[in-house]
């Protein structure tokens, strides 16, 4: 119970998110209507992705300080899950955009920022694969991931200033900015963020454990 309470919490929060997210009364806003429920399933993906990238950077820094491989495992698996969340976020967003804006891809700063972020982290994976030595791979990819994150953060703040976003709540579009986000929406939105992020952490820790077992097995085979 001590160690896995948060997994139960994740299940409960996600069950609540799905049930309440689909059933609660939502405010009728022009254009959005019922699709405002995407807030719980699409917008939360980005929050989850950013949180997990932060965790990954944290472990990257820790790896550089100590040089221990277990931090590298955590860093890479959190990045992997963040990429997964990013891909899910971008594809749900594209489906939503097709029906709301009439196109899968528009020149929207948020879309572009997320696409660039994904490009960065795909490049990170390619970089990892091109290095063979385990320790060197861990160190160099940690350096790149911190560097890329440092370049990614200003991007999120700059791009929206260049052109107005089509996203709800931006540029006079109806939606959930600080003022008209309904308090009812918040009661699902915040738990949803926590729930999805916990699910991401769960996926990552599972993969980390798998990675460690694999390494143990390899060591065992080598030392036979």
């Amino acid at each position, binding site marked *: 119970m001590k160690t896995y309470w948060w997994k139960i919490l994740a299940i409960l929060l996600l069950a609540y998110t799905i049930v309440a997210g689909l059933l609660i009364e939502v405010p009728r806003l022009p254009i959005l209507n019922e699709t405002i429920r995407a807030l719980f399933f699409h917008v939360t993906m980005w929050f989850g992705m950013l949180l997990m990238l932060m965790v990954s950077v944290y472990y990257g820094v820790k790896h550089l300080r100590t040089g221990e491989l277990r931090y590298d495992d955590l860093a890479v698996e959190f990045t992997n899950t963040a990429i997964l969340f990013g891909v899910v976020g971008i594809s749900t967003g594209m489906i939503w955009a097709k029906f709301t804006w009439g196109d899968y891809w528009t020149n929207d700063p948020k879309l572009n920022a997320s696409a660039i972020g994904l*490009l*960065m982290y795909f490049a990170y994976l390619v970089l990892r694969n091109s290095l063979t030595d385990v320790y*060197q791979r861990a*160190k160099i990819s940690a350096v790149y991931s911190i560097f890329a994150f*440092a370049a990614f953060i200003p991007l999120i703040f700059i791009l929206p200033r*260049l052109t107005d976003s089509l996203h709800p709540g931006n540029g006079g579009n109806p939606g959930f900015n600080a003022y008209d986000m309904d308090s009812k929406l918040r009661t699902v939105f915040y738990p949803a963020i926590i729930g999805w992020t916990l699910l991401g952490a769960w996926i990552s820790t599972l993969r980390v454990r798998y990675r460690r077992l694999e390494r143990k097995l390899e060591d065992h085979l080598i030392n036979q």
Partner: protein
Amino acid sequence: MWKEIILLVKKEAVLEWRQKYAINGILLYVVSTIFVAYLSMGAGKGNLGVPVWNALYWIIILFSSVNAVAKSFVQEHQGRQLYYYMIASPEAIILSKTIYNTLLTLVLALLGYLVFGLVFGNPVADQPLFLLNLLLGAIGFSASLTMVSAIASKASNNGTLMAILSFPVLIPILLMAIQVSKNAIDGLDREINLDKILTLLAINAIVAVSSYILFPYLWRS
């Protein structure tokens, strides 16, 4: 520290001067790319719209600076790198390489500007601002590209890796630089550009500081 950096920058310049093919190659690269662009656009003087002129110019500068900086850590072989490792601090090395690459990128950008203006016509209304923007762009490009080339030099398959690692990192700098240079071409009031130039400076600072902090870890491996 500063003495060390100045010495290392001088060393880079001398090294470049001794093997002139590298610098000549990259200068020729800029000129021929511009010429290819000129022929494929099929445009005479002044036929190119300002946004296209601007975007084409920056893309050519982007690609040539990636190519120019890519070699900064591979040109010297392992033995000599070990020698630098023993005599110089990693901070001095990254700073000197960044400064040298800034100069190199600036030369490329200026040459590119000259040739580009020659063949496509020069629509720039606010020259000083355009040049200042070139300087800031060159600093940003070289700061991030030097770091990325240090990363890419550790891995095999250098050329592709250099491109895919650096493009996403360069996009914020490129976007800001393109915006400012668009305003400079149109000759808009300089007040408008102030916050954009400040943002560009801030991004440059972030990139430079993070590469300054991270490079020692890379150098040690």
